[in-house]
């Protein structure tokens, strides 16, 4: 492991009822977070390769944690997303290095397939700050019922020299989708878009 992990946290959220309507089966979202040391806190470096390697490790590990927490097979995962919050001694580019070059490959293995771009967000922040992880269908980005997000926060992270990395996976879309667009049933899932 390149990543020096201080903490891992996993949340699962089930929605059984929405505006008086029973949701059966309940929609479920999982989000897994790793709090890791930022090897480049306080210093500017050109080469961010070590952070990219950390991203590769965390993409697989956090994706697997989500699938495990939902109690599903990888194939049953329907949407995903990723996000990072960098403590104050780092820089936004550190989040980009973790998230974009290498995190997606192992995550796609963890959720089987994953033709679509993994939606992402990033920010600088401190302990207790909210990070909103965007969600989109894993095989067809235009599936409108699966555009969503999930909020995470940890009261004690990220500290100044840390980075908080989040991966979210669901087994469902929004509880009561009815705004049209491409449906999951009609998506081909070949080009990642439709």
């Amino acid at each position, binding site marked *: 492991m390149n990543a020096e992990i201080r903490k891992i946290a996993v949340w699962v959220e*089930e929605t059984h009822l929405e505006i008086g309507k029973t949701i059966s089966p309940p929609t479920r979202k999982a989000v897994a977070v790793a709090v890791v040391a930022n090897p480049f806190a306080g210093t500017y470096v050109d080469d961010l390769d070590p952070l990219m390697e950390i991203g590769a490790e965390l993409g697989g590990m956090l994706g697997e944690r989500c699938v495990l927490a939902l109690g599903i097979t990888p194939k049953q995962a329907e949407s995903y997303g990723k996000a990072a919050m960098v403590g104050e001694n780092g820089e936004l580019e550190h989040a980009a290095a973790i998230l974009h070059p290498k995190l997606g490959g192992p995550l796609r293995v963890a959720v089987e397939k994953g033709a679509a771009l993994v939606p992402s967000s990033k920010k600088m922040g401190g302990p207790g700050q909210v990070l909103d992880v965007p969600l989109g269908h894993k095989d067809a980005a235009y599936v409108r019922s699966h555009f969503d997000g999930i909020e995470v926060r*940890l009261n004690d992270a990220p500290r100044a020299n840390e980075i908080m990395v989040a991966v979210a996976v669901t087994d469902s879309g929004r509880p009561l989708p009815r705004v049209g667009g491409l449906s999951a049933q009609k998506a081909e899932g070949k080009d990642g878009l439709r």
Partner: protein
Amino acid sequence: MPDIEIRKIITSVEEIYHEGGPAAQVPLRRASITAVIRNPFADHFVAEITGFMDDLKPLGLSMAIRLVNLLGGDPAVVEGYGKGAIIGAAGELEHGALWHAPGGYAMRELLGEAKAIVPSAKKVGGVGARLDVPITHVNASYVRSHFDSMEVGVNDAPRANELAYVLVMTTGARIHSRSGGLLAEEIKGKDGLR
């Protein structure tokens, strides 16, 4: 008495490897479960509310079982516990107190010999309110290494007419516990205190 109407269930598990000191071989784990339910007493004063405690018993037990499962399924690994309630704005603090018996006894029953009182916190709050749920050793309230807490909260709950009831369990002492006091190995009596 009305049935329990669940809108959402949220679980979270934290694994803590270190907090700046030596990394533990076995991380400390903290788990929480929050049930967001309709408050049958919202919007008006109801004098007789105690019957709701019986209604809550099955919910309490199912939440405690899920918590143990989140920690691996063996009740013997549970060393700390706590409980809490956030009451939506159309309710009153007293509605949170209804959770003491069904929440506390559910955990104690499941953990077999748990002797210590289950520490608790409650408050009235709006959606996104956070609650710091206190944690103490399951058999002896004075065990200093196990005094801890876990922050919980949900971005969309509790709505005004809802209750968020929370249970928390942990697998051990604070990760770098070294502040003296009664040690877990020194627990003597059966009074739940020392």
